[in-house]
């Protein structure tokens, strides 16, 4: 191409952007709302089930519910359905705890070929690791702020 490279690069970005298919934001949001909502509804049903049939309260039912959802995610991921649902649902499957489960499980399956220690062990938190790191860190910061405010008698 014989025009000067810097202008042509800028021009080209505009040409390419015009041709880039628009991401359907509204449609994606509606899908995410429906599927994400459905997952949460299932979670709520599981919670009621544990509270009704077992000795759990509203405060303690969180952990077994999460574990059950992650177990279901494991089955869906292992049998190869989760990524198809996720292509449809987007944030709807990524934001709930199932998204976290899928990130860990898919990485564990993927790196099975490199062995259990270096493969599965070394890589299963490849995607989810930063969620844990920043989750724990932000919890620490919030707890610190709360403690200081309590000590000062503000709250």
């Amino acid at each position: 191409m014989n025009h000067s490279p810097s202008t042509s690069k800028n021009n080209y970005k505009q040409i390419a952007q015009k041709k880039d298919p628009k991401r359907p934001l509204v449609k994606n949001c509606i899908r995410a709302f429906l599927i994400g909502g459905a997952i949460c509804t299932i979670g709520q049903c599981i919670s009621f089930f544990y509270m009704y049939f077992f000795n759990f309260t509203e405060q303690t039912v969180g952990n077994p519910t999460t574990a059950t959802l992650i177990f279901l995610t494991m089955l869906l991921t292992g049998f190869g359905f989760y990524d198809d649902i996720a292509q449809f649902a987007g944030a709807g499957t990524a934001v709930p705890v199932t998204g976290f489960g899928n990130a860990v499980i898919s990485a564990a399956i993927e790196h099975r070929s490199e062995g259990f220690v270096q493969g599965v062990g070394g890589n299963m938190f490849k995607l989810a690791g930063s969620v844990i790191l920043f989750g724990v860190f932000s919890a620490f910061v919030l707890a610190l702020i709360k403690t200081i405010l309590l000590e000062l008698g503000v709250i």
Partner: protein
Amino acid sequence: MLVGSQTWEFKRPPTILSTGTVGGPFEAKGQLTAYFDQLYDDIRCGQKTFEQANQIMLETACNLAINKSDIPKEQVQFLIAGDLTNQMTPTNFAASTLQIPFIGTFNACATSMESLALAANLIDSGAASSILTGASSHNAAAERQFRYPTEYGAQKPDSAQWTVTGAGVGLISNTGNGPKITSATLGKVIDMNMTDPFNMGGAMAPAAMDTITIHLKDRGIDASYYDAIITGDLAKVGRSILLDLAKEQNITLREDTLLDCGLMIYKDDQKVFAGGSGAGCSAVVTYGYVINQLKQKKWNRLLIVATGALLSPLSVQQKQSIPCIAHAVSIENEVKS
């Protein structure tokens, strides 16, 4: 012989004697099923890993090409091939099994034509009499290396492309009957500062334009010389940009004769976003469908322009742009004078 700035015209055009094409289960449901020699119904091809599956596909394609010709394996002097996996792992292992002197090539999805151009030049210059050349890729092996684990649920935009699982190989010789390789243009790396790895067609289109422009200029011909110009894997987005760029450059690329391997290989109802991609994409389409059509004289003069996005997982994570390249090879039927 060098003509113009970066084109080789071959005085004794090498022949594509025979081909071998292998595909995976998803390709078996595609548009070009009839033009594959072998299709696997298992994504792992009976192997333990995706990378080994890629290796087996390439080995199978090579053996098919050799068996279809009357040249014994021992008389094939070089294997010129590459793939997408780290350090071309599958191709290295396949070359180890085949025991043919090996030249490894990597230009991402432009590997097929890079290899074919080199093979043709070696044969034309007398450095070899028969060379096996090709490229391969594996969807799951590429996904895990360039994107996320295969079962990870990430939503892809419509500009994304689907890596082809397949291997395409051609046996090139200085004698025999078949389509001839008449010229080759090796492209420059063109970087338009595009950064979205989910829109590689958009990144690669300028590289294709550059190579096509130079090829036509070097050979002193018009785009209408060719019955069709077939790009590697620009897919929907890249192809439509290329048509626009061509208009800007006053080169007439016709809507009906500008084809794209990434748009030919799958059926419309297969969910491949903008279209197919991967080193195997242009390889299986060229050595399968395209060579077949040439042999049946449905086309007589073709320009294959394989396009490659030279990104790596590292360059994407470090927020670098996507350097792109395109190599063009013209394949023509012998005109009897």
